[in-house]
């Protein structure tokens, strides 16, 4: 059966006056219907850029899609003309962005903004769209839906604004929903509520989901599969349970170790990964993680490791897996 999403060797670069930033360097993965995938990595590792590239939302200078394919139900989104993309955006694939304050139009009533999505994608009339909007607002947990249709974003709190964004995203029942760091800007308690809400909606509407986050706790709770990215490369991917229990790549190991466990005591140090994130303009020729890797060898510095399927459920890109795991 055809996967919903098939990403093949996606490459994205930014041409700036300081040099070429190689943001996404040949990532490939597939997503089946109903899957929940998490894209994990540090800030700047390319997770958001890869997703924006799929929807062609990147500003084309300075960004440029250097190669690859993104097949949505068999159709390559990257070969579509830019003004044909509106048929995909919102109706097939929807995104919930990170910062709801700046992501909402400050001078347009919230109801109109949600209704706009339906008017544009589902050809609903204004009245009908607003009626649907009221239903949606209630569904996402906004108590006073009828009044709030006419309210403006600045009149809402952060959590409420994010609910509005979610309502907007699911309004046209997209097949794929992408949550780009949607909870990062929120309080921890609100985060939990929002996450639960999205999970419920995913079940109800039968959506496939991609969660982009650097919060590993969320990944463990939500995602069946996880992709770990570093410097624009996928360095490990597979079943979440497997990877969390038994991480293969040194970066993943470091990442999981750095999350302080609740049993940590005062006299124990916090674990961290040595070094700093790489300069995306001047990436080392070999493995991108090699400058910071405790297990590096000569080969790591010059040859880039390919992603290798180690079992049916896990793949990793590292030359020294044996050494890492003392085998």
């Amino acid at each position, binding site marked *: 059966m055809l996967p919903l999403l098939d990403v093949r060797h996606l490459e994205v670069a930014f041409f700036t006056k300081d040099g070429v930033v190689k943001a996404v360097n040949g990532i490939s993965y597939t997503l089946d219907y109903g899957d929940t995938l998490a894209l994990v990595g540090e800030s700047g590792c390319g997770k958001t850029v890869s997703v924006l590239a799929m*929807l062609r*939302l990147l500003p084309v*200078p300075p960004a440029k899609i250097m190669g690859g394919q993104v097949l949505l139900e068999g159709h390559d989104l990257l070969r579509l003309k830019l*003004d044909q993309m*509106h*048929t*995909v*955006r*919102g*109706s097939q694939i*929807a*995104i919930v*962005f990170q*910062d709801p304050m*700046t*992501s*909402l*139009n*400050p*001078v*347009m009533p919230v109801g109109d903004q949600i209704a*706009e*999505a339906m008017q*544009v*994608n589902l050809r609903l009339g204004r009245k009908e769209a607003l009626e649907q909007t009221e239903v949606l607002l209630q569904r996402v947990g906004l108590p006073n839906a009828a009044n709030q249709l006419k309210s*403006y974003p*600045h*009149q809402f709190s952060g959590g409420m604004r994010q609910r509005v*964004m979610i309502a*907007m995203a699911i309004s*046209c029942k997209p097949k794929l929903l992408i949550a780009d760091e949607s909870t990062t800007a929120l309080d921890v308690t609100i985060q939990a509520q929002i996450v639960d809400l999205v999970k419920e909606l995913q079940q109800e509407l039968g959506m496939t989901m991609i969660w982009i986050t650097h919060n590993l706790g969320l990944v463990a709770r939500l995602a069946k599969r996880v992709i770990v990215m570093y410097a624009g490369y996928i360095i490990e991917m597979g079943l979440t349970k497997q990877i969390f229990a038994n991480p293969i790549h040194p970066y993943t190991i470091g990442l999981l170790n750095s999350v302080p466990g609740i049993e940590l005591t005062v006299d124990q140090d916090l674990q961290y990964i040595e070094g700093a994130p790489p300069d995306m303009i001047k990436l080392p020729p070999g493995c991108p993680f090699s400058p910071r890797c405790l297990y590096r060898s000569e080969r790591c510095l010059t040859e880039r490791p390919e992603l290798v399927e180690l079992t049916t459920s896990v793949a990793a890109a590292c030359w020294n897996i044996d050494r890492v795991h003392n085998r």
Partner: protein
Amino acid sequence: MVKYSIRRLTGTLIVFLALSIFTFVLSRAVPGGPWSQGAEMPLSEEQVAIFKAKYGLDKPLLVQYFIWLRNALTLDFGRPFMAPELTVTQLILKQWPYSAVVGGLAASLACVIGTILGSICAARQNTWLDNVVSTYAVISGTIPSFVLGFVLVYIFSAKLGWFPAGGWSGLSFKNLVLPVVAFGLPAAGGVARWTRQCMLESMSADYVRTAYAKGVRQAGVMSRHVLRNALIPMVTSFLPLFPDMMTGSIFIEKTFGIPGLGQYFVSSSFSRDYTLVLGITMFWAILIALTYLLTDIIYGFIDPRVRLTRRSF
């Protein structure tokens, strides 16, 4: 809200008062009077004394000022010395339309041309078109209106004969074209640059990305999201152009011989015709203050963030 308005109103009134005192004091305190500045017939001491008595200029300064103030509050601004057939109020109302028409049309021209040019630049950012139009905007903004006036008259009146070169002969299309263009075109440059900046800021905002991500197409994004937001800072910059240009048309009036209020301001300052000067000054100050107030109100109207935030003062 009411408290805030009252505070602003009192502040404005204080400024008016200060302005009237300033104008009055300067015009009376510096020696000279309507009889001595470039007078055709120098008056004798006696005649000066009679003149002074007639207009109450021999009374102490403070008294003179309060008499003026008392009258002004009833909108009686007295009569100008040089042309006592009309009251100051009548004179202002008679000559003001010329300045208003020229200034108003010029401001309109500046806004229309500027907005169009600025939008083009923003839509085609960093292309050769953007660079050319932006450069043109900068240059046209620096040519003083009176210089441009000369150039235009030379080309279009003297050489091409499209417009009358003889000077002003009343409010007519033919007479208005050159002054309005000379006055408005330089201002259009500034308007264009500001429009471009506002549009670009709006275009690079996150909510524009959200709109595209929703599936809205370019036309919809530009009109409902970009323009709607860019208009707010744009309008608040454009509205003041109108009172500014309606009161500041002096140079154009001199170049084209338009009998507007600016000319009278110059001549009455020169001849110490203080009733007229005070009248014109107050008139302009009130006009400007009113328009700025209007701008504030309009701004509060079109920006829901301002409109719906309860401000406590």
